[in-house]
C-alpha cells in the first residue's frame, strides 16, 4: 500500500501502462515538460521521451484526429484534454470518427484511444474550466464513458481504459486531484474490479445515493451526516456511465426503495434522467418514492463566486434524502 493523491495515482497508472506496453503514447497540450496543468503526466516525458509523451500543437480536434491515426497504426494514445470546456473543438472527431469508425469497418478496425478529461467545478476557475459534459458522450454510441472518484480507482481504471480495445472517455474529478488515499499498486490486474462495474462504497438500508466522479465523496459525507439522524444511506459509485452497471444499481434500489442520483451536471437531460427512467422500469414496485435527481441548475456554469450555490453539496443531498422520506 502506498498513499497517493488522485493525480499521482493516475500518473502511476499511466506510467505502469507505458512500461507494460511500448505502444502506449501520451499526448496533449503541456503534458511534456510541464507535466500537464494538473501535473497528472508529471515526469512521463522525462522517462519515456518526446516520441512517447507528446506536447501537441494547441488544437483539440488535431489531438483526437491524430490519435485516431496513431491508433490505426497500432498505437494506444492517451489524450489529455486540458479542461472539460475544451473538449468541444474535438467533438467532431470524437463523435463522428472515434465513436463510429470501428463499426464502419464491421469490426476490422479497433480504436483503443483514451480521452482523459479533468471535469467538474469547485476550484474557483473562470468560464469553461468547470464543466461536466459527460451526457454528451454517454449519448454517443461507440464510446465507453467512465469516471474515477478516488486514487485507488484512478490507478486501476486508467490502466483498464488503456487496455480496452474501445475508445474510452475518461473523466477525472479535478477538485479531487489532491485528495489522498491508500492505493495497492501490487494487486494483480485480475483482482481489480472490472472498469465497467459499479461499486457499493458504503452499504446502507434506507436509501441509495448514486454518484460518480466528484460527487461520490459528497455523497459519502452526506451519508455519514444522515446516519446521525438515524438514516442508513447506501452510496454507489457508478464508475462506468456507459455501459451502466444497472444490475448492481437496481439491486441496491430494490432493497432500499429510495434513490437519488447526484451529479454536478445540469439536471435537465442529464445522466440522472437515464438512471431514473431505468429504475422506474426495473424497480417500479419496490420504489417508496420517485427517483430524485440532484444536480446543477439547467444553466451555464456560473461565475465562480456562485459555484457553491450551483454545485450539489451536503445540504442539497440531505435535502433530497429528506424529500425521499417525506414522499
Amino acid at each position, binding site marked *: 500500500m502506498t498513499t497517493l493523491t488522485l493525480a499521482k495515482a493516475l500518473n502511476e497508472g499511466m506510467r505502469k501502462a507505458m512500461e507494460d506496453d511500448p505502444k502506449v503514447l501520451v499526448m496533449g*497540450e*503541456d503534458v511534456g515538460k510541464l507535466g500537464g496543468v494538473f501535473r497528472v503526466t508529471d515526469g512521463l516525458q522525462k522517462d519515456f521521451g518526446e516520441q512517447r509523451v507528446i506536447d*501537441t500543437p494547441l488544437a483539440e480536434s488535431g489531438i483526437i484526429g491524430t490519435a485516431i491515426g496513431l491508433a490505426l497504426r497500432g498505437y494506444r494514445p492517451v489524450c489529455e484534454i486540458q479542461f472539460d470546456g*475544451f473538449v468541444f473543438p474535438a467533438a467532431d472527431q470524437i463523435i463522428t470518427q472515434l465513436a463510429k469508425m470501428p463499426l464502419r469497418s464491421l469490426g476490422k478496425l479497433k480504436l483503443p484511444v483514451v480521452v482523459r478529461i479533468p471535469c467538474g467545478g469547485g476550484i*474557483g476557475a473562470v468560464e469553461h474550466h468547470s464543466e461536466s459534459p459527460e451526457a454528451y458522450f454517454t449519448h454517443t454510441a461507440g464510446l465507453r464513458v467512465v469516471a474515477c472518484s478516488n486514487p485507488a480507482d484512478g490507478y486501476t481504471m486508467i490502466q483498464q481504459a488503456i487496455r480496452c480495445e474501445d475508445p474510452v472517455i475518461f473523466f477525472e474529478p479535478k477538485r479531487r486531484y489532491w485528495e489522498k488515499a491508500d492505493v495497492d499498486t501490487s494487486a494483480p490486474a485480475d483482482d481489480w474490479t472490472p472498469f465497467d462495474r459499479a461499486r457499493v462504497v458504503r452499504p446502507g438500508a434506507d436509501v441509495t445515493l448514486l454518484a460518480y466522479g466528484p460527487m461520490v465523496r459528497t455523497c459519502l459525507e452526506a451519508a455519514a451526516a444522515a446516519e446521525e439522524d438515524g438514516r442508513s444511506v447506501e452510496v454507489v459509485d457508478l464508475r462506468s456511465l456507459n455501459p451502466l452497471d444497472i444490475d448492481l444499481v437496481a439491486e441496491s434500489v430494490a432493497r432500499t426503495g429510495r434513490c437519488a442520483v447526484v451529479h454536478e451536471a445540469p439536471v435537465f437531460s442529464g445522466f440522472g434522467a437515464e438512471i431514473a427512467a431505468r429504475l422506474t422500469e426495473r424497480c417500479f414496485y419496490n420504489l417508496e418514492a420517485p427517483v430524485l435527481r440532484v444536480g446543477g441548475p439547467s444553466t*451555464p456554469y456560473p461565475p465562480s*463566486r456562485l459555484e457553491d450555490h450551483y454545485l450539489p453539496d451536503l445540504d442539497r443531498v440531505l435535502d433530497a434524502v429528506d424529500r425521499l422520506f417525506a414522499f
Partner: protein
Amino acid sequence: MTTEPPRGAEAPPELVQLLTPEGERVEHPDYDIDLTPEEVRGLYRDLVLVRRVDLEAVALQRQGELGIWASLLGQEAAQIGSGRALAESDMVFPTYREHGVAWCRGVDPVNLLGLFRGVNHGGWDPAEHNFHLYTIVIGSQTLHAVGYAMGVQRDGAVGENGAATIAYFGDGATSQGDVNESFIWASVFNAPIVFFCQNNQWAISEPLEKQSRIPLYRRASGFGFPGVRVDGNDVFACLAVTRKALADARSGQGPMMIEAFTYRMGAHTTSDDPTRYRLADELEAWKLKDPIERVRAYMFKNRIADQDFFDAIDAEADELGRDVRKRCLELPDPEPLAIFDHVYAEPHRLMDEERAQFAAYLEGFEG
C-alpha cells in the same frame, strides 16, 4: 529527431521596428509615423497605467481577491500600439489577455477584474466600447471577428468611411482549426479585418516551435493575404503597422495579418509556474527590450518630457492602482438567483421553474 532548422525557416524574418530598445528612432521603408510630443506622452502614459493595473491585479490575486489573472506584462506596447491605432467605429475581438486594448477602448479595468474575481463572465457592453467580450476558448473569436467584418462589408461600411475589425490571438492559437478557418473566410470574402497575433513565444509551457516551423506572419501568404512581423515591444511600430493595416482593411483591401513579436514576461496566468519549463536567461534577454523603458529613454533624449512628467505619471499610476483595488474589493458577490438570469433572451419555463424551486430551497435555510 533532427537538429537542423526546418525547411522554410532559413530566411531571417524582417522585423518592423521604429524605436530600438535603446530608445533610438529608426526608419523603415514601408512604415513610418509622425507623432507629436503630446501623442508620445500619451502613449507613455497608457503603457505605464496598464502595467500598473496589471501589477495590481496580480497582487489582488495573490491576496485571494481574484481567482486567477492573466498578466499582460511585456505585451504593453503591442496592445497599446494596436489599441491606439483603432478608430472609434472599428470593432475589437480580444482573447483574455487584452487588458491594454480594453484600456484603449475605455473599458473600466474593474470590469475586467470582475471576470477574474468570478462575479461575472465579463458583462461589459461590447457595443458601447466596440470591444467584444473576452474569449477564453482559444481561437473561437477569430471567426466571430471575420463574420462581424462580413457584416460591416454588407452594410457598405467599406471604403471612404469604412470600419475595420481586428481579431487578437496568441501564437498558440494559430494551431487551432477555427483560426485557420477564419483566415480562409477572411481571404475568400476579402473581409475588412486585421489579424493581430501577439507572439509572446509561449503557449503556457509550449514554445513556438511546437506550433510552427515558419515565422507566423508568413502563414498569411499561404491564405492569400499579406503578413508582417513587427517589434511587439515597440509601441511606435505597433501603432504604425496596425494603423496602416486597419486603413487598408477599411478601404476595401481585405485582410492582413500582423505578428507582434513580443514576450510573455510573467507566468501564463497566476496559476502557472514557468520555472518548470523555461530558463531565466530568456527572461533576462527580453528585459533589455522592455516596451516602456525604450519610450522613456527616447523621451528623455529628445526632451519630450522632464522628470516632473514622469513623476506625475507614476503618481497617477499609483492612484489608479489604489482606485482599481478599492473598487475591486467593493464588487458585490452576485445574488444566488442570478444564476438563472440572462440564460435566455425570452421568457423560459424551465428557468422560471428552477428559479422558483431554488428560491424556495434557499428560504428553507432562513426559516
